[in-house]
């Protein structure tokens, strides 16, 4: 680039120089020649007058006249007789005149004879140089006609021309050299600043968006730099806005409990959030993979295809089998951009827990009705028999029937009592005290209540582990109920000869109470559900034992209301119930 610019400039200067040089050269030469010729013609006119006066006798006076005129006008003067014989010459001695050849044939002499004036430029053999000749005729005083010729060597003219050429050429070449030098200097200066701008521009383009070009005031690069800086600033602001927006979206997506998946119309996934990944147990990258690679669930693909085909939203419930059994509510939305389908957004809402709760509620209603119906049926049956006449005809049997009716009414009463307690606990209407309680006192009281039952089944209850237990915070009446329910359960499910052990230990600011039995244990698949209402491990047996199926649910609610937790461990050698309560 730089060389091109300089070359063009140089070419223009050289061309211009050549034109100027040749034109000046020619004009000057022409002018000089004209001037010299005119001078010589004038001189010749003067010399003719002088010669006409001076020369009396041509052959005698001519050499002296020629010499004197020649001295004055500083040119060679030749006087030629009418027959062409040279009779006087300022540069040739008189004695040698005879050696000169006849000049009658010279062009200027011939012209002068015919036109009264002759002009010629020729190479003179005599002086060995280009000469300008001017010849004019004149009549000498004696009356003979003759010619006077002036000759001026053009060598002086050539010398002047040479000098002029040298000066002109020198000036032009100096101009050319200067031009090259300044043009180099200027282009490299602008090149340097352009380079600096381009380096910074490339850094900006590579992402160093904060880089700025130093602005040089007044230079054309300065304007460019200013525009570039402005552009970079705009881009930086734009990028900042975009990345802030993206961060916000990312945070929202990350924080969402619902799984989100975005895919293109061909089922290639473009975006998922962490909730989606955990829902489908995805470990590696999924962006760029096909939906079919994530899950082969047929319903998923049917929904996807429908949304793509119809371009309409869709809400569907999905039963996921792997990695876990899950119920997922999916919401499919087509992604439209200028009415063209760009893909699909799917939101996956895990409703397993909601469905589970609904099921528990449904089961609860069914269970309550069932539990209530059994004793009611029994009571009704025996009461009917009594009414039908058994009361009078068979008083003994009637007494037994009334006993049965009483026991079932009692059972009904305790069931309703438990249900009431539970609903009070759940609604939070039950006032709970919170004071320091000695666990050992309560345990002893409960053991006294249940002693008869335990002795009947030959089960020993050991609550000595609570003797040194720290006091806990809670409601004594409710805590007593917890112990009653747990110990009652333990006695029921422990075979004769077994034992139930109570113990407690401090864990930080909490106290953990353990009720351990040597009973039959609880199957592990039932463990997560035993605190549910009416959940029975073995329904037939539990009812024989006279339980309501609500004991553990009540335990859980009481403990949770007092800020504690309940858990259970079980093996073939018995079960352990753990209760944590706040330390007093």
């Amino acid at each position: 680039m730089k060389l091109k610019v300089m070359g063009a400039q140089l070419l223009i200067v050289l061309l211009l120089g050549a034109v100027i040089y040749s034109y000046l050269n020619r004009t000057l030469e022409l002018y000089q020649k004209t001037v010299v010729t005119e001078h010589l013609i004038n001189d010749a006119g003067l010399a003719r007058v002088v010669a006409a006066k001076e020369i009396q006798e041509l052959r005698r006076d001519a050499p002296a006249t020629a010499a004197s005129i020649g001295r004055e006008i500083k040119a060679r003067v030749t006087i030629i007789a009418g027959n062409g014989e040279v009779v006087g010459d300022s540069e040739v001695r008189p004695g040698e005149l005879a050696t000169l050849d006849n000049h009658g044939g010279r062009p200027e002499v011939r012209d002068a004879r015919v036109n009264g004036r002759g002009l010629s430029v020729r190479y003179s053999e005599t002086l060995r140089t280009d000469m300008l000749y001017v010849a004019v005729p004149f009549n000498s005083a004696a009356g003979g006609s003759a010619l006077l010729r002036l000759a001026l060597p053009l060598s002086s003219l050539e010398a002047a021309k040479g000098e002029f050429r040298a000066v002109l050429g020198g000036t032009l070449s100096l101009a050319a050299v200067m031009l090259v030098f300044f043009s180099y200097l200027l282009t490299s200066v602008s090149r340097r600043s352009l380079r600096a701008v381009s380096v910074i521009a490339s850094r900006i383009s590579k992402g160093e968006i904060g880089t700025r070009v130093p602005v040089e005031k007044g230079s054309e690069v300065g304007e460019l730099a200013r525009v570039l800086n402005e552009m970079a600033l705009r881009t930086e602001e734009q990028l900042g806005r975009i990345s802030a927006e993206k961060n916000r979206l990312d945070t929202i997506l990350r924080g969402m409990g619902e799984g989100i998946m975005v895919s293109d119309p061909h089922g290639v996934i473009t975006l998922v959030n962490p909730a989606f990944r955990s829902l489908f147990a995805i470990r590696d990258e999924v962006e760029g993979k096909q939906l079919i690679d994530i899950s082969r669930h047929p319903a998923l693909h049917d929904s996807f295809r429908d949304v793509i085909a119809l371009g309409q939203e869709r809400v569907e419930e999905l039963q996921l089998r792997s990695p876990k059994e899950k119920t997922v509510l999916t919401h499919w939305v087509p992604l439209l951009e200028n009415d063209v389908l760009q893909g699909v957004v799917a939101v996956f809402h895990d409703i397993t827990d909601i469905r589970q709760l609904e099921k528990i509620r449904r089961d609860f209603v069914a269970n309550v009705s069932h539990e209530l119906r059994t004793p009611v049926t029994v009571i009704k049956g025996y009461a009917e028999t009594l009414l039908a006449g058994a009361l009078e005809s068979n008083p003994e049997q009637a007494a037994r029937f009334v006993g049965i009716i009483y026991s079932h009414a009692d059972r009904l009463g305790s069931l309703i009592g438990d249900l009431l307690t539970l609903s009070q606990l759940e609604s939070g209407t039950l006032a709970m005290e919170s004071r320091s309680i000695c666990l050992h006192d309560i345990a002893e009281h409960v053991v006294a209540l249940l002693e008869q039952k335990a002795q009947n089944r030959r089960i020993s209850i050991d609550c000595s582990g609570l003797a040194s237990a720290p006091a806990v915070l809670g409601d004594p009446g409710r805590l007593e109920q917890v112990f009653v329910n747990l110990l009652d359960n333990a006695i029921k499910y422990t075979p004769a000869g077994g034992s139930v052990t109570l113990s407690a230990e401090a864990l930080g600011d909490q106290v953990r109470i353990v009720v351990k039995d040597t009973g039959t244990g609880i199957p592990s698949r039932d463990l997560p559900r035993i605190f549910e209402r009416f959940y029975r491990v073995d329904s037939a047996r539990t009812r024989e034992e006279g339980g309501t199926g609500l004991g553990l649910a009540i335990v859980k609610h009481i403990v949770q209301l007092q800020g504690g937790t309940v858990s259970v461990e079980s093996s073939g050698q018995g079960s352990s119930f753990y209760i944590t309560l706040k330390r007093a």
Partner: protein
Amino acid sequence: MGKDHTSSQFDVELNDIRARLLEMGGKVELMIANSMKSLVERDSALAGRTIASDREINAMEIEIDEKCLHILARRQPAARDLRFVTLVLKIVTDLERIGDQCASIARNALELNREAQLKPYIDLPLMADTVNNAVREALDAFVRGDAPTAVQVCRDDRIVDELNEQLQRELLTFMMEDPATIGRALRINSISKYLERIADHATNIAEMVIFMVDGKDIRHTIV
């Protein structure tokens, strides 16, 4: 599949086959689960739906077969693509057979649901879970080109075989004790056999995946 093809249409076709095959796999997995659910939960309606869905599987087999033959005829795939297409042709057959076995299980479930339950179903769901896992993992291995998982599927086949034998022994005692149970026991026995066969098909798929990934044929060898 085949990232280096100049013809992108070819890529699209191969990808389509792969997607359809996986979809068919998904349907088959669902069939296994549903056939077992129809038995355990005594859901005869579900059994009916499962039997009906075998028709879909058969249609998909024909469709994928045709697509593969089309590619073989039109594109003359070589090396890796040829291996892939022949593999799909074989996997499709296995999946279709699994579909048939599921339909058979559902048919037996329909019959069993008409009578009282012979015994609590414990081993059968366990077997079905194992089998379904095997099919899922074989297909996952196919998706990821994951040979170690495929090898594991081949190894796990033994578990199903053992469960099958154990169940057969148990059923034998039922039948010896009470001839009235023989009908039901035989049905349960055949369900167990179907499950065992499904596991064999899963093993077949896994072996082909190993062949696809490692280029090593391990059929009829002990892994």
